[in-house]
């Protein structure tokens, strides 16, 4: 009897510790009950591929949140990267090219350039936060507004002015829209990119000095400082990495949509931060895991996709979505709130 009781309590404890994964499963079960045909390979692939670029952004933001920071500029950086990469890789025969004389570059060039640009702004964020002690909320809010201005200026130029940048070269759209054929299904490359970045970030957070320092700075910056950690340097690097991730994600967005405007990415940071928090990242820093972040994004995406799939009317969708987010986290909080 005793061992049974402990077994039971171990399971309960496990459930509590992993509420958020359990919640994701319950959510899927709920939708399947409402509409059994939700359970299909197509839907799974759709949800995963829709989550991919969001996961990459969320991983960038998550590192900053773990540091105890935040990043409101993420969405606008995605937009900047989308516009820059799209402008550099329009099909040769497209009529409204931003650079009519630019030859068709190899795919990696615009990706790298976009990543460098946003990596630079990310670094700037980190610099302002760590060197001038501007609270991250304000530093990145300023950046969000400023980057939008910069993107708009780049975007709204001769010869064609403020036109969405379309006509992307085939290499670009293939990169973001195609996939590997597996039987009757096409497994999108997008998912592979998300997996690759997840692994890289996981290793970074868990196996490297940078990762440990990140957790330490977020957990107790004073402790990190007196232990000889170069706090400023580490903060800058984490913001820089986030910038690079936004850059890659921005090119994915351009490729996925087949065009880019200065409005691309607007407000993505809000979804990303929310997904991180739902996935167990603490806004006060020091806590967060890669699987948690991924799960957070998936929960959001299952909600979005599921509600649309069920055909819930858009206004009602908002109400249901708001409620689910709160409920998910309320459940998750029970593990902490268990009265001492």
């Amino acid at each position, binding site marked *: 009897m005793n061992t049974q009781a402990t077994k039971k309590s171990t399971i309960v404890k496990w459930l509590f510790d992993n509420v958020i994964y359990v919640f994701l499963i319950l959510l899927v079960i709920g939708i399947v009950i409402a509409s059994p045909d939700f359970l*299909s390979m*197509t*839907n799974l692939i*759709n949800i995963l591929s*829709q989550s991919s*670029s969001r996961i990459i952004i969320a991983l960038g933001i998550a590192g900053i949140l773990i540091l105890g920071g935040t990043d409101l500029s993420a969405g606008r950086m995605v937009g900047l990267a989308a516009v820059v990469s799209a402008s550099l890789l329009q099909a040769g025969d497209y*009529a409204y090219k931003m650079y009519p004389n630019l030859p068709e570059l190899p795919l990696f060039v615009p990706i790298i350039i976009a990543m460098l640009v946003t990596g630079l702004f990310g670094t700037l964020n980190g610099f302002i936060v760590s060197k001038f002690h501007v609270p991250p909320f304000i530093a990145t809010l300023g950046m969000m507004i400023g980057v939008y201005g910069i993107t*708009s200026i780049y*975007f*709204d130029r001769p010869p064609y*002015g*403020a*036109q*969405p*940048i*379309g*006509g992307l070269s085939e290499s670009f*759209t293939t990169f973001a*829209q195609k996939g590997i054929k597996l039987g009757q299904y096409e497994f999108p490359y997008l998912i592979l990119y998300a997996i690759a970045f997840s692994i890289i970030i996981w290793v970074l957070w868990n196996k490297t000095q940078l990762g440990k320092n990140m957790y330490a700075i977020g957990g107790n910056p004073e402790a990190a400082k007196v232990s000889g950690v170069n706090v400023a340097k580490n903060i800058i690097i984490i913001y820089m990495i986030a910038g690079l991730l936004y850059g890659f994600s921005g090119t994915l*967005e351009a490729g*996925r*949509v*087949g*065009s*880019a*405007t*200065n*409005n*691309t990415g*607007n*407000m993505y940071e809000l979804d990303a931060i929310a997904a991180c928090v739902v996935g167990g990242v603490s806004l006060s820093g020091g806590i967060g895991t890669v699987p948690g972040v991924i799960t957070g994004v998936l929960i959001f995406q299952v909600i*979005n*996709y599921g509600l*649309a*799939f*069920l*055909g*819930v*009317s*858009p*206004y*009602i*969708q908002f109400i249901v979505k708001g409620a689910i987010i709160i409920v998910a986290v309320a459940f998750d909080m029970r593990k902490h709130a268990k009265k001492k």
Partner: protein
Amino acid sequence: TGCGGTEKSSTDSGKGKDGDLPAVGATIYKFDDNFMSYVRRAMETAADGKVNLMLNDSQNDQAKQVEQVDTLIAKGAKSLAINLVDPKAAQTIIDKAKVKDIPVIFFNKEPDASVLKGYEKAYYVGTTSSESGILQGELIAKAWEANKDTWDKNGDGKLQYVLLKGEPGHPDAEARTKFVVDTVKEKGIEVDELALDTGMWDAMKATEKMDAWIAKYNDEIEFVIANNDGMALGAIASLEKAGYFSGDKFMPVVGVDAIPEALEMIEKGKMVGSILNDAKNQGAATVQLAANAANGKDVLEGTEWKLDDAKAVRVPYIEITKDNIQVGKDAYK
């Protein structure tokens, strides 16, 4: 009655009673866009009992819309009615539809003609962005010529204007801003731009910009041009505060959309005119074409619409002033 509306729209787009009708997947680029909400209503009305219209709010995010299209296809939509967020993304939508051989009716935001040509089952219903600018320009020119004596306050023969632009980069904002001024100039009127700033389609922002301009230019401003009625109304609120529209203090204001609120202002003489974006017909035509497509019929079957060379059904913009105000009102009947 409050709940009535809600339930209606949810069954319209859900499975409910329309479950057996052919499914048309539709996206609206932004549900809370004033103008598009009229189009949406017109679509709902037109769809009633004919098709199962699955409506989505793309929330002004093209990536979200692309995802919604995936969902709609997964749900078995027989045709798609797409109000693009970003007109250049049409190819991506077509690529997805093509795989399943699903017809696509784009509406309100026009894809490149070459893209439409690339897929035989793709069509467009809507206006031309530039047209609203041109019509607005013509309206301004006409009104100016008729009232030059009083409106040209400094008597220099030139029209000094301030312009409230929509969201920078928005195709409508860009086109209207460019074509309205070009048209006025083409009509042989010399102009001076005192100020141009974005009010992001928003009445409140427009009010605040206008506050600053009135403070700065005061009587130098001779015309207020707004990219939409929302901002025109915002400008009017600011002007009223500064004493305009009472006594003999007057300022000509024009907008685009001809929303009911603007029609009121036109009637009261606080607005010179607006350009009607014909929501009713855009919505109706879109659904008619989409329904035909979903039923495997010729898209124009049983309608009065015609396709032009670009496979587009054109619903014209209409200039609205006090003289033809009833035309505007009828659009909301």
